């Protein structure tokens, strides 16, 4: 996204600093959460949710996806879809396997 004026950029810079702070805090939160004695399921859910939030912050702001062209967003949606297809079908195959061991 192209033409930025200098003031535009200045406001961007503010956002970058805020995102940075958020990322740092979230990192500490995930680490802190491991001391909470959560159940296995909750721990996984929490850790992955926080990672997803952090990931979206990075992609949206540092990588400017939030204001990126539709074509790039489409490309990434397709990729992420196939990523989950791989992940999901692979793991579900593990649960639908004839194995009397």
């Amino acid at each position, binding site marked *: 996204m192209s033409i930025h004026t200098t003031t535009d950029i200045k406001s961007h810079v503010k956002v970058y600093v805020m995102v940075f702070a958020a990322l740092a805090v979230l990192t500490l939160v995930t680490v802190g959460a491991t001391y909470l004695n959560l159940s296995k399921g909750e721990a996984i859910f929490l850790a992955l949710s926080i990672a997803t939030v952090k990931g979206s912050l990075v992609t949206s702001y540092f990588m400017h996806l939030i204001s990126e062209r539709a074509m790039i967003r489409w490309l990434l949606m397709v990729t992420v879809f196939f990523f989950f297809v791989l992940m999901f079908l692979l793991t579900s195959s593990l649960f639908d*396997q*004839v*194995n009397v*061991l």
Partner: protein
Amino acid sequence: MTKILQKLGLPINLSIDGIAIDNVISLVHWLMLVLFIGWGAFFIISIFKFRQSKNQKADYEGVKSHLSSVLEVAVVVIELIILVGFAFPIWANRVNNVPDASENIVHARIIAQQFVWNFHYPGEDGVFGQTSLDLVDEIDNPIGLNRSSEGGADDIVTINQLHIPVNTKIRLDLSSKDVIHSFSLPELRVKQDAIPGMVIPVHFEATMTTEEFLVEMEGTSREGKGLEIACAQLCGLGHYRMRGYLTIHDQEGYEAWLEKEKSYLDEESDDDWDDDW
């Protein structure tokens, strides 16, 4: 269609479960044949009728009807019927209806290895003895059977020799010691990979004894050649010779064979046994 396919090489079918498989193979070959002939005819007529020497000027639009879409939908419908009506249930039967030992079945284990099939029968008591890696000895005890474990004393272990009775449910639990092999009985329409680290059951029921089969084969190139176990998955340089033998007995024959195996066991000391070559 099954008849045509048998002319083309498909062996005759010796198992109850194979009937369904042959049905699917026939059905889908009908579909293929119809599609091929239909399209083939259209194709030949087109190139003949519209060759340049005959048809100087091409028609910008060509075919105007949308019959082809109708045909495509028809193909979808037929495929769906084959899937839902045949393919799914057959598979479900194969996977879910594994008979368990309490039923009146023959239950054996198969342990594949480069380039041999080891068979492990539970013997008279119907209980498989324990096996352990540390006991494995390629010459005397290829499957690492512990003869002194519970039910292990009367177990029968054979190499490359699978004996089963006719008209009885057979369940075989497949595993492998080293690499992936694939246990294949072409005439019984059985094929299943044997994968190390996994135990996968297959089940089937033979409808004809080896003897009857050999009578059936008289006068063909198969004459005098019994049933065999093939390895279908590349497993190393001996893959091509990883052949086992399958003998389907009638009930008495099977029991006689069990007796004979038992007598070998009695003759020999615990850790030294016969390999049935």
